[in-house]
């Protein structure tokens, strides 16, 4: 598996349509490279479009979303992101997902066991009920759930948030995807539970050898768990590179700003605290309905020069560090 090619997302663009208004260009030319067995962080504030990236890759966007362009390379296949049926074919086989809110992500009227069986029904259609049962219990045990055979008969509301998130991780374990997309998997959980759940996600990677796309607003999680990081702002990737390099010497002023703040750039669970910290970067997100032909971050950037307003910069490799990419013209 180590020698398989990376999973690559190329040139994804998504618009959100609403009646009587120009479309909101939520994602523009987003590209990501996710090497085998690595954990890539996709970090950005709320509204930056990071969850939209996940939903577009899964083909689960809201009905008012239009995918303009984009493709995904998985193994030897090349999937067109505008082809909903092709994306549906990836779900549960090549891609799986862990969601932000474990209290809502399991069906309240079905048992834990029913959820796990359903994953296996898709993934291993030939297995008997008894085989599925055995593998489901084994998966629960692997993700650290006590008395897994009893838990199979429980309903979601009988489990804590952390436990429910482990159940979803167990579903991912049974799906054995090439890529696990974890969309803010610990945002809704206590800090103490966060470390345990992240440990289970890493353990999952180690066991089935998948790659992980970790979508988060938490720079702490990125620094601790990710190999690569992609910094997304207002629907554009501004910087991509190995975490250590990006943290040490950010190649985009936006990355530098958020890393300098050394705080979570947004914390939806604690709006009051977040409010005070938001002001550290003055200005607001640009309107996605009316974008300038300029660097998207220039209006808020401390280092902006007139050239920044002259044209829209592309995401290009750094000259002396070709593994890293940035949109900032000053870094070249």
């Amino acid at each position, binding site marked *: 598996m180590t020698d398989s090619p990376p999973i690559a997302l190329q040139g994804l663009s998504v618009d959100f349509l609403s009646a009587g208004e120009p479309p909101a260009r939520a994602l523009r030319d987003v590209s990501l490279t996710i090497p085998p067995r690595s954990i890539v962080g996709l970090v950005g504030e709320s509204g930056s479009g990071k969850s939209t990236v996940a939903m577009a890759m899964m083909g689960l966007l809201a009905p008012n979303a239009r995918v303009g362009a984009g493709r995904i390379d998985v193994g030897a296949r090349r999937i067109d992101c505008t082809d909903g049926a092709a994306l549906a074919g990836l779900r549960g086989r090549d891609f799986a997902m862990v*969601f932000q809110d474990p209290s809502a*992500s399991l069906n*309240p009227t079905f048992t834990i066991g029913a959820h796990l069986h359903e994953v296996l029904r898709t993934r291993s259609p030939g297995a008997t009920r008894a085989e599925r049962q055995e593998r489901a219990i084994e998966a629960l045990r692997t993700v650290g759930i006590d008395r897994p055979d009893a838990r199979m008969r429980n309903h979601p509301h*009988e489990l804590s948030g952390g436990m429910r998130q482990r159940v979803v991780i167990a579903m991912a374990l049974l799906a054995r995807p090439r890529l696990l997309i974890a969309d803010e998997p610990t945002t809704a959980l206590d800090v103490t539970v966060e470390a345990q759940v992240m440990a289970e996600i890493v353990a999952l990677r180690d066991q089935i050898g998948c790659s992980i796309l970790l979508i988060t607003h938490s720079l702490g999680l990125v620094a601790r768990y990710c190999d690569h990081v992609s910094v997304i702002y207002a629907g554009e990737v501004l910087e991509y590179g190995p975490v250590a390099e990006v943290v040490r010497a950010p190649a985009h002023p936006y990355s530098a700003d958020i890393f300098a703040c050394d705080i979570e750039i947004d914390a939806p669970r604690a709006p009051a605290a977040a409010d005070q910290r938001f002001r550290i970067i003055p200005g607001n997100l640009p309107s996605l309905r009316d974008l300038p032909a300029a660097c998207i971050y220039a209006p808020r950037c401390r280092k902006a020069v007139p050239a920044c307003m002259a044209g829209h910069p592309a995401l290009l490799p750094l000259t002396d560090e070709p593994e890293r990419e940035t949109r900032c013209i000053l870094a070249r």
Partner: protein
Amino acid sequence: MSEALGIIWRRVLTGALTVVGAITLLFLLIRFVPGDLASILYGPRVTDALRASLAERMGTDQPLPVQLVLFLSHAVRGDFGINVISGRPILDEILGVLPNTLALAFSALGLSLLIGFPLGALAAVRPGSLADRILGVLSVVLITTPSFVVAILLLLVFSLALDWLPVAGAGTPGDPVDQLAHLILPTTALAVGWIGYLARLVRASLLEVLAEAHVRTLRAYGVPEWRVILIYALRPALIPVVAILGMALGDLIGGALFAELIFGRPGLGTLAYNAVVSRNFAVVQATTTVIVLVYVTANIAVDILSGLIDPRFRRTEGEAAR
């Protein structure tokens, strides 16, 4: 499991209390009518012998609380006395026609579910489609047309214009095909409104569930769309639908009263109506008591069914009781 039994037991107990309360209310309403009890219950046919037997049965010479206890104890045992017109025990007469009324109410409920449910589900799967918009308009029209009006219109069409279905009676006893044929028009008349109502409710409920995160989870794991909708979205969407069924049955039994009169069908409605016309309130009172019993029982059954579908309900009920 014992916890679930405790909840069921508690629900049955409150149901029984409600029935006792309803019978008490009925008693008070009867006693509130000016005049003596015998002439209220038996109308112009009251004789001194009847008056004497009632005084003994109901303790009309005793204080009010004693009368209430006597009234309750008779009602609870199903002893409603004798129908002064036919001379038969009232309970026997009620039990004789109760199956007709229940068959009508339940077949109307079944028909409403059979048609309303799939219509609502189809509309929810394709919101905004032509079928959805047609259903949106149609359901309001169906809901707002009173069932007795539908019954009259059906009678009009089938008795005057066409001659397809029998329009009167309940059919020959012992001939199921004939009985079924006699059931079709009154059932349709009663069901029409609830078809519209259930279609709307199912649509709204399923749409809400389909937008929930757990549906997205299953899709993310590649579960086929038909399984997502028919198995995993439908069950939580059923919760509000099941919750309304008790009320539906009560409404249908009430509506059956009119359908029975219009289609000349023997049942609780015709029995009670004829009793009112002949000022024989003892029969009305007994019929009302039996209907309340059926209605409260149906509501208990619905609550238990809700608990079976929605596991959270079991817990909240238990916690609320603690």
